[in-house]
């Protein structure tokens, strides 16, 4: 399938100028291309901030925040959330809200365990276990 579409893609390319001009005129690229430029800019920013020793342990948080902004851009412009029905927006939101429930209550266990943080899990000596090979499908 992909080989064939490549050949067709290539065919489309060589008459690119003739057909594309006809195909594209009138199709305004505007909101999409500016959004794309913003996304590339944000990605570059995230990369730079990650490589610089500015934030130390918070650097992951910063890059995740930038990723969230990029995600918002994609949601609004590429996935047309503005024009979507409220129930469609709600179902998208539900996924994220239920994720916070999973994270929140799971962390409520890990953050409140006795002893200094993370001490409850020590790597034990190699435990005796069934050999790799024996474990069938």
């Amino acid at each position, binding site marked *: 399938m992909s080989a064939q579409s490549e050949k067709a893609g290539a065919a489309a390319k060589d008459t690119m100028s003739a057909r594309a001009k006809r195909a594209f005129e009138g199709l305004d690229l505007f909101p999409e291309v500016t959004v794309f430029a913003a996304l590339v800019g944000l990605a570059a920013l995230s990369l730079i901030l990650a490589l610089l020793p500015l934030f130390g342990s918070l650097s992951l948080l910063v890059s995740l925040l930038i990723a969230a902004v990029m995600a918002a851009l994609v949601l609004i412009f590429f996935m047309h959330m503005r024009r979507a029905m409220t*129930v469609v927006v709600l179902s998208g939101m*539900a*996924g994220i809200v*239920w994720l916070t*429930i*999973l994270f929140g*209550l*799971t962390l*409520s*266990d*890990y953050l*409140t*365990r*006795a002893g200094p943080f993370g001490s*409850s*899990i020590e*790597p*034990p000596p*190699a*435990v005796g*276990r*069934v050999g*790799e090979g*024996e*474990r*069938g*499908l």
Partner: protein
Amino acid sequence: MSDIPFRDVDLEEDEAGPSTAEANYLEERFSLWSWLTTTDHKRIGILYLISTTFFFFIGGAAAVLIRLELFTPAGDLLTDDGYNKVFTLHGVVMVWFFLVPVIPSVLGNFLIPLMLGAKDLAFPRLNLASWYLNIIGGGFAVWAMLAGGVDTGWTFYTPYSTAFANSHVSLTAIGVFISGFSTIATGVNMIVTVHTMRPAGMGWFRMPLFVWAIYATSLIMLLSTPVLAIVLTLLITERLLGLGIFNPEYGGDPILFQHLFWFYSHPAVYIMILPGMGVVTEVITCFARRRVFGYKAMVYALLAIAVIGFFVWGHHMFTSGQSMYASLTFSFLSFIVAVPSAIKVFNWTATLYRGQITFEASMLYAMGFVGLFTMGGLTGLFLASVPVDLHMHDTYFVVAHFHYIMVGGMVSAFFAGLHFWWPKITGRMYPETAARIAAMLMFFGFNLTFFPQFILGNIGMPRRYHAYPDEFQVWHVLSSAGAVILAAAYLMPLFYLAWSLIWGRKAGRNPWRAHGLEWQTTSPPPKHNFLANPDVSGDVYAYHPRRNPRDE
């Protein structure tokens, strides 16, 4: 609320029986191919009925083996590995191939379009794909069973399931993973149908409560099944590719597996029970000839259970080394989630007040549900309080608790629904006396099987024990005796319902004089459900005159 004229269903025109020219959905085409490639929601409902019944009897056979083994303290019927594989099979098959799909996919598939006056579900082909996914998943589970079974328990706890079990864990996990897609497909179908295909005039608060129950169940299905999918994927990748995310040698945490697993598995028990609540509401209102008491309260209770059900999974892990503060948080939330269930029980009871109650078989099952679900729910409170759970966790008390909800509650509700809508599905009436005997036998056999297990739990009999010390034997003997009666009670419907297909009395359009759009079409309904557009003007449970239009 406009003053909706009260008009109980009049009987005369009903006795005429199906006089329609168009063939109904059963007689439309007989070839096997027409059944296997059908996109008619009614036929897919029947396909699911056949497959879930098949899995019910596999799980049931495993249950009988377990009860026979536990008849004697020594493990003499099966080897210990054999016993472990049998109880795991009972768990996996019953949970994922019977309890989760049965009411949404059998009764839900058949009735939701009918109750909404629609021609079919939103995505008919997705509906058929859902059945095939269920069958393929079931195929994997049966293949794993035949190839030697899996002995990890249906909970697949690591590191036993990933590093130490050398039975067919991955095969079963793949089977359950595929059946998870079937659940998601059913969930998407139901939600989109309820949102986009309701008839004009049927607002959200004039839908039957069965539709609300299936809607709330679909919400849970969609928001919990993916986490089961990811947990099973991680289980398979750890076993086959060594990517040890829960491997204690790498500093991984088996308790994280339990967190992710129970994030699915507790909402899953609400997937199993909510449809049952919807069926019971329909049955009780019909045979008590009363409006449901507190319709809005029942709707909010359904949605509250669906949402709060996601906050309580930690009560399965009080003894697992989870931090005490998290345990207390989960304990508190588990008490809160019990409140909506209690409200629903009180509302069912209040619906019976001042009714004209008749005792058809489905009414007996529904009243049995109310009683047994109350006991199941309340014993849940025992396990939600931390000190009692430290004693009762992983003992037979827990086994009795969830069987009271699953078998006493869910299976009774399924049989109530099956008998209530049997005339609509097949156009035939089932033999009433035989059905009543089966219902009462099931109630008695059930209690004799599972009440002794409460006492077993209290005197410390642990779960999943192949052999046990002999001070527990008395209660096990009682329980095993009850199991034999229960097994007999389950076989009866198989016979008399099959009998009714050929010799049953022809059922008219509305044998129970029930309200609901599904009773306005012939039984069995034609291929496109309604010949004329159904009359949606009537109130949703117009069984008795409303006192005045002001109140709800």
